[in-house]
C-alpha cells in the first residue's frame, strides 16, 4: 500500500512519519504548485472552491507518483467540504485511476468507521504501547512546527535584515523534520528557540497586531494564501492565527469524540452576532474576530476561498463586529490567482491604515 494525502502547511512531514511508522509506504505530496492548480481546475467543477481544486490536484500528483491509496478527512457539513472526498473519489475514478480512498470522518458520529479506517493504515505488527509512542512522537513534532511558526510571527516584524526570519524559520522546519525520537525533539526545541532568538531585531519599533481568521485550508496553507503571513510580517505586522494544526485537531476531533463542542469560547464570543452554525468556519471567523478585538488587536484579516458560503456569511457579519469593537477588518477572497501584486496592494493599504489609526489612538498623530 502506497499512501498519499493532502498537503497543508508543515503537517505533511509529521503525517509522513506517522504513516511510515505504522508500516506504510508513503508518497509525500508535493507543495501545491501551478501544476497542482492546473490539474485541479481542469478536473474540478468550475464553481468548486480553491481548497477542493488544490486537493484534487494534489491527489492526481500523488497517484501519478505511484500512490495507490489516498487518505483524507471528511466532515459533516453543511460546508461542501463534507462531500468533497466522495466527489473527488468519483472524479479520480472517472479519470481512470485505481486506488483506495480512506476518509477519516469525525469520531462522534462515525467512531466505528474511524476505528476500521485507522486499522487499515496500521500495516505492521505493533503493540498498543508502540502505537501510542508513534502518536506521541508525531504529536510532539507537530507541536514543535507550530511553535516555530508562532515564533516566526513574533520576530518577523522586528527583523533588521528583511527575509532573515523566513530563512531561519525554513532551516528550523528542516531540522525538526529530521528528528527521529522524542528525545531528539526536546533537544531540537532548544536549538530552534536559540536560532530564532539570535535574529537581529529592532528595538525602537512596535508592530501593529493582526489576527488571521477564515477557512482552514487557505489559512493554514501558504501556497493557497500567497504567503500572507510572510508579507504581513515584512510590512511590520505581528500576525496571530486563529488556527494551528495541533489546536484544531484537539478542539475538533478529540473533543468531538467525547461529544464536547470545541472552541467553546470562540462560539460564545460569536453569539451576539452569529448564533447558528453555518458550516465550515464561518462562526469561528466571527468569534475569533471578537476575541482579537477584546485583546486589543489593531486589525483582523479574513481569508476565504472564492464562493465559500460559510465565509460569505461571516463576511457580512464582520462589519458589525468592526463597528462595535472599533477594530479594522479586511476580507480577502482567494482563488487561482498566483500574482501577488493585487494582494500586496490591499495589505499595504490595510497596514498603512492600522499604523495611522494606532498613532492617532496614542495621540501621536498631528
Amino acid at each position, binding site marked *: 500500500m502506497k499512501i498519499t494525502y493532502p498537503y497543508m502547511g508543515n503537517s505533511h512531514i509529521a503525517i509522513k512519519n506517522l504513516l511510515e511508522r505504522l508500516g506504510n509506504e508513503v508518497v509525500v505530496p*508535493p*507543495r501545491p*504548485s*501551478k*501544476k497542482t492548480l492546473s490539474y485541479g481546475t481542469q478536473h474540478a467543477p468550475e464553481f468548486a472552491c480553491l481548497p477542493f481544486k488544490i486537493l484534487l490536484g494534489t491527489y492526481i500528483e500523488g497517484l501519478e507518483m505511484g500512490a495507490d491509496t489516498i487518505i483524507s478527512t471528511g466532515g459533516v457539513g453543511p460546508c461542501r467540504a463534507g462531500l468533497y472526498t466522495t466527489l473527488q473519489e468519483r472524479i479520480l475514478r472517472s479519470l481512470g485511476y485505481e486506488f483506495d480512498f480512506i476518509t477519516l470522518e469525525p469520531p462522534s458520529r462515525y467512531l466505528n468507521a474511524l476505528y476500521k479506517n485507522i486499522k487499515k493504515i496500521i500495516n505492521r505488527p505493533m503493540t498498543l504501547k508502540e502505537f501510542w509512542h508513534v502518536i506521541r512522537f508525531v504529536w510532539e513534532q507537530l507541536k514543535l512546527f507550530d511553535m516555530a511558526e508562532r515564533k516566526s510571527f513574533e520576530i518577523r516584524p522586528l527583523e533588521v535584515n528583511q*527575509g532573515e526570519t523566513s530563512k531561519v524559520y525554513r532551516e528550523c522546519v528542516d531540522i525538526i523534520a529530521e528528528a527521529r525520537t522524542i528525545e531528539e525533539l526536546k533537544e531540537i526545541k532548544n536549538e530552534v528557540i536559540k536560532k530564532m532568538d539570535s535574529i537581529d531585531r529592532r528595538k525602537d519599533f512596535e508592530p501593529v497586531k493582526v489576527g488571521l481568521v477564515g477557512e482552514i485550508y487557505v489559512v493554514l496553507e501558504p*501556497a493557497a494564501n500567497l*504567503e500572507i503571513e510572510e508579507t504581513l510580517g515584512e510590512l511590520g505586522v505581528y500576525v496571530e492565527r486563529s488556527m494551528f494544526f495541533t489546536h484544531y485537531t484537539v478542539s475538533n476531533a478529540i473533543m468531538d469524540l467525547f461529544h464536547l463542542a470545541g472552541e467553546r469560547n470562540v462560539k460564545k464570543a460569536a453569539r451576539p452576532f452569529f448564533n447558528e452554525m453555518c458550516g465550515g468556519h464561518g462562526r469561528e471567523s466571527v468569534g475569533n474576530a471578537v476575541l482579537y478585538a477584546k485583546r486589543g488587536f489593531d486589525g483582523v484579516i479574513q481569508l476565504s476561498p*472564492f464562493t465559500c458560503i460559510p465565509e460569505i456569511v461571516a463576511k*457580512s457579519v*464582520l*462589519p458589525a463586529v*468592526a463597528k462595535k469593537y472599533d477594530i*479594522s477588518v479586511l476580507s*480577502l*477572497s482567494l*482563488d487561482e490567482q498566483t500574482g501577488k*501584486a*493585487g494582494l*500586496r*496592494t*490591499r495589505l*499595504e*493599504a*490595510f497596514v*498603512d*491604515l492600522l499604523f*495611522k*489609526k494606532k498613532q*492617532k489612538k496614542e495621540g501621536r*498623530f498631528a
Partner: protein
Amino acid sequence: MSSFLGVDVGSVSTNIALIDEDLNLIEKVYLRTMGKPIEAVQKGLKILKQKISGNIDIAGVGTTGSGRQLASVIVGADTIKNEITAHAVAALNIEPDVQTVIEIGGQDSKVIILRDGIVIDFAMNTVCAAGTGSFLDQQSNRLNIPIEEFGKYALRSKSPVRIAGRCAVFAESDMIHKQQMGYRLEDIIRGLCQALVRNYLNNVGKGKEILPKILFQGGVAANVGMKAAFEEALGYEVVVPEHHDVMGAIGAAILARDAVSHKKSTNFKGLEIMDANYTVDSFECSGCPNRCEVINIKMENEVIARWGDRCNKWKNIGV
C-alpha cells in the same frame, strides 16, 4: 523652484503629475499603458518635458498603481506607495473634510472611508471587474460612441432600462437583448450606469458607511452618467475633482515630497531615462516545486532588478 513627480502606472492608463512645493499641480500627463508599462512611463516623461518650457528641477519621485514596483526601478523612486493611500492623500489635500473617496479605474474600483483626516476603512473589488473603466471602454467601442460622450448619452435619458449589473458578461448580454428589442440607446446607457453603481455599492461599498463629502476619482469619474447615477443612488452630492484622472499620481508626488523632506536627497535617475533602452525577460526557476516565474528588468542590457521568486534567491543576484 523644485518640483515633485508622481507616477501612477495602472492597468489601463499611466498618469504622471508634477507638483510644486506647495502641492499645486504644474502639469499632468494621462496616457494609455497599452500593456507596456515601461514604454508608457518613458513616453509620459517625454510628453511632460515637451509640455514644460524651461528647466524642471525634480527633487523627489513617488510611484503608485499596480505597476509601482516596476515604475520605481525605471525612474528611481523615493517612495513606492499603494494606490489606496495615494488616492486618500491626494483627496485630503484638496478637501480636508472628505469622508468618502469613490475611485474607479481601468480594472479596479475602490471605496476609501476617511474620518478626521485619516483612512479608517477601505475596500477594493477582489474577484470581479464589472463596472470598471475597461468595461465601459469596451461598451463605448461596441456602440461606437466616443468614451468622452458616453456619459452625456445617459443624461439625455428620461426612462432608464434595467440592466443586470452583477457581472460584466450578464450586463453586456442584457444590453444587447434590450438593444435588439429596440430600446433607445440613451435609456440603455443610463440603465447601464445605474447597474454599475448598484454593483459597486453592493460589492465594494457593502457594509461601508458612505457619508459626504464624497469625492469621485479615477478615469471613470469623467463619465457624467456615472456621477449622476451615484448621486441618485446615494442621495448626496458627489464631487469630481478637477484633476480626478491623475489623483493617484498627485498623491504619489505628495508622498514623494514627504519622503524627500526626511532624507534630504532623491533617488531620481533623471529625465534621461526616457531615452534609455529597457528590456525584460523571464524564466521559470527549477530550484523547487514552486516553479516561480522570475523576471529580469534590464537597462542597456544590464539587469537592474529581478523579482518573482518566492524565496528571494534570485532577487539580489547580479543586480
